[in-house]
């Protein structure tokens, strides 16, 4: 039986949650890959050649063919290596729901965390308020559409939403310390529960960036972007 001979390279940066997503997906599926840390201040020629449109990480190079944009890479991984564990659900309606929430998370919540980091004083307060409102919407939506997330046990395989959300939100302690407390058990108990359980998952533990290094990185990003 022919084995899928594949050469997989991942261009990423250690602090990027978007890159962690791809790492998680590759590991979950047991796909061997070579990781290349890209210096975003000095992008390599290879990187730019295969990624001319956005010039961003993560970039997956599979048998020399580039795939970019983390959500798209995840779907690609699930479709090409379509063995279990499956990252996306099989049912079209459930697939539509995970895609909907992934889009909401990226467009509203992730953008929201950046807005907080790049604002000061009253503006920052407002950004935090706005973010928390959106987090509530997200939490309620997940509770309704994917109630099983709220009783997540780390013996389960990671799926699309776990990977997309956990890859950044599991670093909440670093964010709370460096920027602002936005994930706390009182305001968002269900979301908090999901993230704390997800954080303990072995695959997540080994793939997330180290806490102190991330705190330093976030603090420096904040101070540079007034």
């Amino acid at each position: 039986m022919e084995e899928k001979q594949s050469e997989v390279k991942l261009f990423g940066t250690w602090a990027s949650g978007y890159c962690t997503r791809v790492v998680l997906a590759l590991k979950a599926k047991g796909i061997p890959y070579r990781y290349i840390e890209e210096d975003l201040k000095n992008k390599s020629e290879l990187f730019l050649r295969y990624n001319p449109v956005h010039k961003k990480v993560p970039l997956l190079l599979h048998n020399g063919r580039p795939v970019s944009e983390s959500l798209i890479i995840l779907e690609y991984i699930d479709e090409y290596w379509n063995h279990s564990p499956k990252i996306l659900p099989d049912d079209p309606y459930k697939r539509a729901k995970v895609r909907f929430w992934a889009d909401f998370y990226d467009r509203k919540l992730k953008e929201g965390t950046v807005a907080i980091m790049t604002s000061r004083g009253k503006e920052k307060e407002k950004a935090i308020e706005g973010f928390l409102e959106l987090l509530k919407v997200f939490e309620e939506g997940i509770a309704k559409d994917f109630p099983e997330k709220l009783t997540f046990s780390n013996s389960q395989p990671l799926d699309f939403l776990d990977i997309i959300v956990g890859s950044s939100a599991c670093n909440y302690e670093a964010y709370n310390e460096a920027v602002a407390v936005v994930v706390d058990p009182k305001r968002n108990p269900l979301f908090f529960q999901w993230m704390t359980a997800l954080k303990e998952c072995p695959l997540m533990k080994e793939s997330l960036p180290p806490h102190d290094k991330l705190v330093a990185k976030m603090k420096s990003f904040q101070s540079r972007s007034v």
Partner: protein
Amino acid sequence: MAEEVKLFGLWGSPFSRRVEIALKIKGVKYEYIEDDLQNKSALLLKYNPVHKKVPVLLHNGKPIAESLVLLEYIDETWEGNPNLPPDPYERAQARFWAKFIDEKCLPALWKALFGEESEQEKAMEEALQNLKMLEKELKDKRLFGGGGGGGGGGGEESIGLVDIAANFIAYWVGIIQEAVGAEILNRERFPVLYKWIDELLSCSVIRENLPPRDKMLAYFISRVQAAKASK
């Protein structure tokens, strides 16, 4: 088992029209409900509480929102005339360009046409760059394609996700340009893209699912006038 498909849409919305085009290509029977923006219907708020926008599809009572999510849902649910090709790499490319259109092209175009004067020049540059990239992706294909039976023969069966997603560029941009008196997209600057526009608009399933030009133009003209009046 009787199937019930309802679409909440807006006659002038490119996002809403995308979904109609996809449903029509698949031959899916659906009930269309025009949303009243001034008075967002209770049903719309019930089925899309998160974004409160059209299009929303109701399939056997289950709601789905976001046009690109809907295009994939439609492809996965109903057989025949797919808008995505079977190969995972080609699917990834189609999704990339559809996302590029929504996240980069459309906002830049909108800002270039309607934004604050101070933002317009920069937005114009960005829009031009984005359109050039899109045009480059077209290469020598008649359509972005990837749909149906594949092949470069053109025709309705080859319309793919990216062609549908780019409907705003093919139709709305020209109308809005006329209304605001700007010109970003023209045949001299974008000959390849214009060939694509001609090809796309020659497909009856596309043509028949666009808002009437004069009505759309009148809408945008009145919008421009309202914006001027409020200055």
